[in-house]
């Protein structure tokens, strides 16, 4: 097992195995002495030594724990083995302490594995940066780069900081952040993240975040916090085990005294160890959350995992989730015979030049792409909420918007424009009527592209056990229904204001659903907060999303959503299996002791075995990922990750 922290950690690992090895050796000597000699003394001495070697650390821990007012497993084992020595059961004492020591060493080793996902994340943290200072390349520790400085990222090197590309081109493997291993092309203006790895090319990156102010650091921090945050079941279990151990001691005492059988009492102590029970939940959660993080899925904590496993309804904001959120110009309809297509588009672009509306950018970009001269900002721009925009440019008043906007400015002859807009809307497009001064000149229309994997995502959500998938959108019903039909969602709710989205979530909750809400926009915030689980998509770029979303999908891959839900379900199932294993083991051992046949040594063996089974079961959560990941690599290129993010560059 490769240590991820640093070299000096290897000595405790040697210490970990030193105790069981020494005690095992002494037991072997004792058994051998028993064979070779008729005198029992040498064998007994060796046997007791074995118990002392393996038992002393247990006793020390038990005393420390007692001082901290914790009645733990160590105390049970210590009392049982001291008792066994006292009544002359040397072999039992040696066997119990030896098995306990071996079990502990194995537990420590395997528990480290369940934390391996996080260790891997910590391992990708960059340590060195090549900074350009006064035109000279200087090597500095990654944490000492100053924001605003330009760092160089060469082929094969790790990106040392969060930043923006200011020169060069290259491909980055962003798997550490997004879980997607297909390299992403980066060029000027693109955001890059610390801990991603260059797979070719040469990038100059202006640092915007360094050290603990990077997305990777935030992810690590979030995962650690999430692993520590206790699930409801775990809080219950903690309370349970606080009473359980003293109760076992009392039971053993009563049983021992009542039956007059000291061995029975001591055996009860050993088999009553709650070892498997106390770790049953944390191991599953650490493994589940850690694995999710490796796939670019951040889950806020155990409680959110448990809630996510119950999700029965998923509400999805259309724009940017089911669709690309980057609309394209689809139509330019000329209604003024004196003008041509280019002129209508130019007027639309001039009108929208000062607008902050997302669709404005689409029109401006389309005009630029068609080689039209896009003038500077209009002298005056005023958005009319819910209707469109009015701009004054070069002594002309330009209106871009819906029929209501034309009515607002009392423009005559809107009938043809209205009908054209209607027809475009029926095809799922968003029409905008363009009027210059008092004349309607034409209609332009834009449409948002449906993501290629949106339909697959909806199908996989259903397969993951989600009963209903609801699309929420502020867009018109026609556009929404066109998208709904193409993606297979169960229900479409269109024309919603932010507060309507919130109401839609509440309605689903009233119907008894556990609701997850997926969104990426600010206007989703109330709905995201109201939903049982708020899911942020493409969270890598947003520190707020990483820190606040119940589930943050770091990348832009839609299929991570059903994956997150099914992983949550598997983790919770895993947790339940572990609790069952632990409880059933103790019950069977108890029965075995009462019916006879289970000795202290057998009890400890079975008990330690159950602990390892529980850890091994949790580790399945880590392993399953690789199989799924392999299956998902093939179709990934079609998933749209390779499409360049910035349209204008």
């Amino acid at each position, binding site marked *: 097992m490769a*240590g991820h*922290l*640093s070299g*000096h*950690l290897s*000595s*405790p*690992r040697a*210490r*970990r195995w030193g105790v069981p090895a020494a005690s095992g050796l002494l037991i072997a000597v004792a058994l051998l002495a028993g064979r070779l000699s008729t005198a029992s003394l040498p064998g007994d001495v060796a046997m007791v030594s074995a118990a002392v070697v393996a038992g002393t*650390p247990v006793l020390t*821990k038990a005393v*420390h*724990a007692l*001082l*901290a007012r*914790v009645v*733990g*497993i*160590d105390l049970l084992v210590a009392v049982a083995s001291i008792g066994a020595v006292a009544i002359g059961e040397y072999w039992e004492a040696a066997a119990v302490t030896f098995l306990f020591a071996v079990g*502990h060493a194995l*537990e*420590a080793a395997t*528990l*480290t594995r369940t*934390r391996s996902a*996080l260790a891997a994340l*910590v391992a990708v*943290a960059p*340590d060195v940066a090549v900074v350009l200072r006064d035109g000279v390349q200087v090597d500095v520790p*990654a*944490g000492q780069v100053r924001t605003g400085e330009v760092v160089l990222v060469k082929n094969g090197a790790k990106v040392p900081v969060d930043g923006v590309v200011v020169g060069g081109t290259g491909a980055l493997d962003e798997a550490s952040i997004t879980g997607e291993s297909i390299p992403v092309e980066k060029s000027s203006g693109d955001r890059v993240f610390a801990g991603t790895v260059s797979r070719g090319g040469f990038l100059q990156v202006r640092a915007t975040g360094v*050290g*603990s102010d990077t997305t*990777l*650091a935030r992810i*690590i921090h979030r*995962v*650690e*916090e999430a*692993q*520590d945050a206790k699930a409801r079941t775990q809080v219950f279990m*903690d309370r349970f085990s606080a009473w359980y151990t003293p109760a076992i001691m009392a039971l053993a005492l009563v049983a021992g005294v009542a039956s007059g059988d000291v061995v029975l009492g001591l055996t009860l102590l050993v088999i009553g160890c709650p*070892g498997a029970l*106390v*770790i049953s939940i*944390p191991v599953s*959660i*650490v493994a589940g959350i850690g694995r999710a993080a490796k796939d670019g899925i951040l889950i806020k904590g155990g409680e959110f995992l448990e809630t996510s496993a119950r999700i029965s309804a998923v509400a999805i904001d259309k724009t940017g989730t089911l669709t690309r959120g980057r609309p394209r110009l689809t139509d330019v309809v000329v209604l003024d015979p004196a003008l041509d297509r280019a002129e209508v588009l130019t007027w639309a672009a001039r009108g929208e030049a000062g607008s902050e509306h997302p669709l404005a950018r689409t029109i401006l970009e389309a005009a630029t792409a068609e080689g039209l001269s896009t003038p500077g900002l209009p002298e005056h721009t005023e958005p009319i909420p819910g209707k469109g925009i009015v701009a004054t440019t070069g002594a002309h008043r330009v209106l871009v918007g819906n029929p209501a906007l034309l009515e607002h400015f009392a423009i005559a002859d809107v009938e043809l424009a209205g009908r054209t807009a209607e027809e475009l809307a029926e095809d799922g497009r968003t029409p905008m009527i363009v009027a210059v001064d008092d004349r309607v000149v034409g209609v332009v229309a834009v449409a948002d592209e449906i993501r290629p994997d949106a339909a697959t995502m909806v199908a996989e959500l259903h397969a993951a056990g989600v009963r209903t998938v609801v699309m929420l959108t502020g867009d018109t019903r026609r556009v929404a229904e066109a998208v709904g039909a193409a993606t297979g969602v169960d229900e479409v709710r269109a024309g919603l204001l932010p507060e309507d989205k919130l109401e839609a979530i509440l309605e689903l909750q009233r119907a008894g659903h556990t609701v997850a809400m997926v969104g990426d926009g600010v206007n989703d915030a109330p709905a995201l907060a109201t939903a049982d689980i708020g899911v942020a998509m493409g969270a890598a770029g947003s520190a707020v999303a990483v820190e606040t979303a119940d589930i943050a999908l770091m990348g832009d891959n839609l299929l991570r959503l059903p994956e997150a839900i099914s992983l949550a379900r598997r983790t919770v199932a895993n947790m339940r299996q572990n609790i069952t294993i632990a409880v059933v083991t103790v019950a069977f051992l108890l029965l075995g002791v009462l019916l006879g046949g289970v000795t202290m040594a057998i009890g400890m063996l079975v008990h330690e075995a159950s602990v390892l089974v529980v850890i091994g079961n949790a580790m399945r959560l880590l392993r399953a990922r690789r199989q799924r990941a392999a299956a998902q690599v093939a179709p990934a290129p079609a998933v749209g990750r390779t499409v360049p993010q910035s349209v204008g560059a």
Partner: protein
Amino acid sequence: MKGMISMSTTTATTHTVLRAEGFSCPSCVAKIEKRVGQLDGVERVTVHFASARIEVDHAPSVPVADLVAAVAKAGYAAAPVTF
């Protein structure tokens, strides 16, 4: 590691996070809190079992190496978080 100024007093407190290895039972980490808490200048110690982290609030005069050594005395290897 982030340096934080505590608001209630004029003394500065350093917040150090260590990542440890080999945590295997939730109750055995209690002694780490005790060991580290005994050091002069250490105000608060929190041990997280699941993520194997140790959070320490201490006076800046306490070297991080002393914290690591105290954890080692309790039987666990730890290293300061650099990222």
